């Protein structure tokens, strides 16, 4: 099952590369550098989803004390941190040629940095507590609280003046992109989502085996 997921993710990533480089046009204003979007935007969408999963699984753990919910939250947070890191790295590489800087402290970049640090803190917290049940309980509380960051990141570009531009797609009204760019984005999002599922499935299984070996 997990293996099938892995192969699906690999195929979808190949399709995504094809969409990004062969199907999507060279963007009129920015040129080829705009293609970084096909990694940058799917990464952050998957990171959002990953942290929503942490939020839901943390509530489920607090309500039921089911270890499976805790393992899901743990795995999803790890993969979410990975994709947030990828978002920051690709955004930085995109920012240098277009904006003229690798980094600036505007509300969008700052709120993403806070998001990243909070979930790194979540993983640190888990690692610092030896007793499994207590680690799971504390982590679940943080997993619920840290989700506050997700709307903050999304709306930062609307609530404050920023260097980062407002959303092109995730907004009311028509999108500010031609359909071919939207399609390329969605294919890459699907590919990244499959990769996320593959990583989480692997990590959940490992965490379960570790738990069984430790018990």
């Amino acid at each position, binding site marked *: 099952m997990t293996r099938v997921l892995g192969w699906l993710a690999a195929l979808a990533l190949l399709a995504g590369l094809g969409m990004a480089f062969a199907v999507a*046009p060279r963007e*009129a204003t*920015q040129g080829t550098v705009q293609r970084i979007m096909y990694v940058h935007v799917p990464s952050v969408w998957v990171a959002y989803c990953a942290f929503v999963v942490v939020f839901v699984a943390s509530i489920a753990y607090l309500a039921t004390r089911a270890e499976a919910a805790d393992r899901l939250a743990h795995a999803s947070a790890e993969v979410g941190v990975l994709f947030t890191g990828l978002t920051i790295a690709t955004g930085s590489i995109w920012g240098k040629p277009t904006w003229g800087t690798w980094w600036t*402290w505007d509300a969008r970049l*700052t709120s993403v940095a806070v998001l990243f640090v909070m979930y790194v803190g979540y993983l640190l917290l888990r690692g610092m507590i030896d007793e499994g049940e207590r680690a799971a309980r504390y982590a679940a509380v943080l997993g619920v609280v840290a989700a506050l960051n997700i709307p903050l990141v999304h709306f930062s570009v609307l609530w404050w003046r920023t260097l980062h*531009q407002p959303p*092109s797609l995730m907004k009311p009204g028509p999108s500010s992109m031609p359909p071919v760019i939207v399609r390329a984005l969605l294919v890459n999002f699907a590919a990244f989502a499959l990769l996320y599922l593959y990583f989480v499935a692997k990590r959940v299984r490992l965490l379960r085996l570790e738990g069984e070996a430790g018990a």
Partner: protein
Amino acid sequence: MRKTKFITGGAVIAAALAYMIYAGVTQSAVYFVTPAELRASAVAGKAYRLGGMVLPGSVTWEPRTLALHFTLGDGTATVPVRHKGTPPDLFGEGRGAVVEGTWSADGYFRASLILAKHSEEYKAPHDASQAGYKELIRTLQGDGR
């Protein structure tokens, strides 16, 4: 009873965190001032981040001295900007820009850093169908940006 305490504690922590994030971001939330805001309270020698539109026809760039002059406007006020250096690729007339620097007593903004702000609009070139692939090949041959 224990549950109530737990939920109350959690809510207090959540509210405190939310407030800290909100207050922290709000304080530095004015990422840039507009030309009108700068005109209203400009202090010579003070550092600002100024954002606005690069007025069409205002840009002059001298490649030998790297002297870049242009005017930023926001529809109500304009500010002349002087900079020494090469602007980023997306910098241009009729587009947004954010500049960091100081207000000079001589009535212009001395910018030490020019940032180009791009819009959320993405456009395909006019003949969108296969142009992307051809353009890519062209750029791979070292002809494009």
